[in-house]
């Protein structure tokens, strides 16, 4: 399995609905699928449609002031950022660098926090709009089409037996794991934090797996659900 690289990525956006929100920043780090070493970093702000009426007319949510506050951005700053299509093209090239065989089967695996619910729908939307898009399956083909890692699911599985864990939001995790919250909600910092947690989880998984194999786990007939 360890033959694809991982792209840990995150969008900052101007609102909360992934199907209509406008991205204001995209950041990513590429990790070697084998030794989990950092291979590359991507970071760019994105100029959204700042005029509310024009945004609505184009089918997007307007940029919310609250979102700008949380992500520490200003309308003036975003007005100077490159447009979505240009950034997206560069992001696709960045991701494509880590498809080390240049074949769909070896496309990198997307990783992020709460990506299934939020970031992957944005990826799909942008792929459909600008490519690369698998028309026959109506599916993105920038990343692996089969595998994805939503770290939130892993964290849930890892902590669900611990009644002291009340929340697994990224902010709670930062505090629990001793990560600084100073630049939280900057896409690049979020991505770096996510990557650190992801690497720790994977290293732990790998160590555990070496001692507890699943091979023939139910061969003795001891099924939990019969």
């Amino acid at each position, binding site marked *: 399995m360890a033959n694809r690289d991982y792209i840990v990525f995150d969008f900052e956006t101007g609102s909360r609905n992934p199907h209509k929100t406008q991205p204001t920043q995209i950041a990513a780090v590429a990790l070697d699928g084998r030794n989990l070493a950092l*291979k590359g970093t991507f970071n760019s702000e994105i100029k959204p449609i700042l005029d509310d009426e024009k945004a609505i007319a184009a089918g997007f949510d307007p940029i919310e002031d609250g979102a700008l506050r949380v992500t520490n951005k200003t309308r003036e700053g975003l007005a100077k950022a490159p*447009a979505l299509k*240009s950034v997206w093209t*560069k992001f696709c090239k960045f991701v494509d660098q880590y498809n080390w065989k240049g074949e769909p089967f070896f496309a990198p695996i997307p990783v992020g926090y709460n990506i299934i619910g939020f970031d992957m729908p944005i990826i799909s939307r942008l792929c459909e709009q600008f490519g690369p898009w698998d028309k026959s399956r109506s599916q993105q083909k920038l990343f692996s089409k089969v595998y994805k890692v939503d770290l939130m699911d892993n964290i849930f599985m890892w902590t669900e037996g611990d009644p002291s864990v009340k929340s697994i939001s990224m902010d709670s995790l930062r505090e629990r794991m001793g990560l600084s919250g100073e630049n939280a909600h900057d896409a690049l910092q979020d991505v770096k934090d996510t990557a650190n947690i992801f690497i720790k989880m994977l290293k732990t998984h790998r160590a555990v797996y070496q001692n507890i194999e699943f091979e023939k786990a139910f061969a003795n007939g001891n099924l939990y659900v019969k």
Partner: protein
Amino acid sequence: MSNEYSDKKTWQLFAEGKTKGVFQLESNLGKAWSKKLAPNNIEELSALIAIIRPGCLKAYVDGKSMTQHFIDRKHGREEVTYLHESLEEILAPTYGVLVYQEQSMRIAQKIAGFDLQEADELRKAIGKKKADLMAKVKKKFIAGAKKTKIVNKEEAEEIFGWIQASSRYAFNKSHSISYAVCSYWSAYQKAHNPEEFFLSYLYYANEKQDPHQEIYELISEAKLFDIQARTPSIANYQDKFNTHNGKIYFGIKDIKSLTGKTGDNVLNAITEAEKVLDKKITKFTWIEILLFLAPLINSTAFKALSSIGFFRDFNGKITRNKALYDYEIYRVLTAAEKKWLLNNYSNKKWKSLTNALQDLAPTKKEGGGTSKQERKQVIENEINLLNNPPYSLDDDAGWLIDQEVKFLGCPVTLSKVDISDTSAANTTCKEILNGKTGNNLCVVANVQRVADYKISKGESKGKMMSFLTIEDDTCVLDSVIAFPKIKQKYKYIMYEGNNLILCGSVAKNDSSFIIDKIHEI
């Protein structure tokens, strides 16, 4: 004949197992057994070619293959014995091992008084395994032996049985000697003219079943002869493999996806661009490459050239990633915008793509080259991204290696271990291949192949062991063994593509590197 085949350097090459490309001995099997046998005359080379055939390797007597018997006898590790003393003169050149069909025929002539025709019938009967014919020949053999009285009836039957058993592996000597002669001369060329040897093999590598694997192996082995490979560049390119200053350069048409007409188009495009600017491509600036060469070749070809570092020789040092990045931005331009840049280049002489786009961005009304405000904004976006690339445009070593493997079949500029810390190594693959022995040898290497093998007998029956092919920046080493305990302990990190610190030993009189510890890097 002995003088003709007495070149020490050539025999040394066989003894070191450096036989990639040497006729009949270029497989891993051929290389390994050549090293084990270390032939030093044409007779032994002929025998080597005969005994590394499947029949001989699988013919076990007293728990050892006939091949191993032959080698142990040659090196004095096993006594040379004969089934009967009378066979010594026939079997002495092959240390008492019945290697050739011709030896069976001579035995029949001597022991049973067969004439040449009868001896040939024996060969045919053995070779074709015809039971009825065999029974007839056997009867004749026993009767003949009775007449010559060299051996008694029991001995004659034993000798015949032995000849019969040899049918599994005995080879035709005339065939084998002819092979040996070809093998010797190809090894001679390799030993004395390695540059030309590798060049010619690489030149025809695309005719092999797996050209990329062939190129990989040849380039790896060339390192053993201190011949380095290089990717083509604007400063040095030809259509096919070529040598320059003692280095082997890949040709334009040796790049994957440029092998056919696309490669010809690239070569023609370079000539055409040179004519337009009236100067050699080596004198082009990077912006001139983008404006005058890029439009003449298709994007797949331009990206392939960028990825293997074809444009690396610029004064401004264009990394492969930067070349790809700039090219993608150039491709954002419309045909009219590209034409505007071409038409205005002679006046403006831009130094960079950014400068060119800054002049292009304003609309035509504003004195630039874009047709409308929308296009102006697109170009300004690209200028922004040229000035502030969202990712590093340096060439990551791992990426660079992947690109060369993808387009050339093997890493050329860097070795796969160059991305790892190699300070823990106390030896190299080349040193081990050249005969270094001892314990606690540590090599930092990339695992190229892991062949798992289920042990079928002995104490470890049913357990898995592995044969590894590893490589570092010196060469490829394919006689690396992980016995069951080590296989079990390190199975999660011992996979293809991983860089590892492999520690182990090589015993005297053995060329296998036995792993006893593995560390992750």
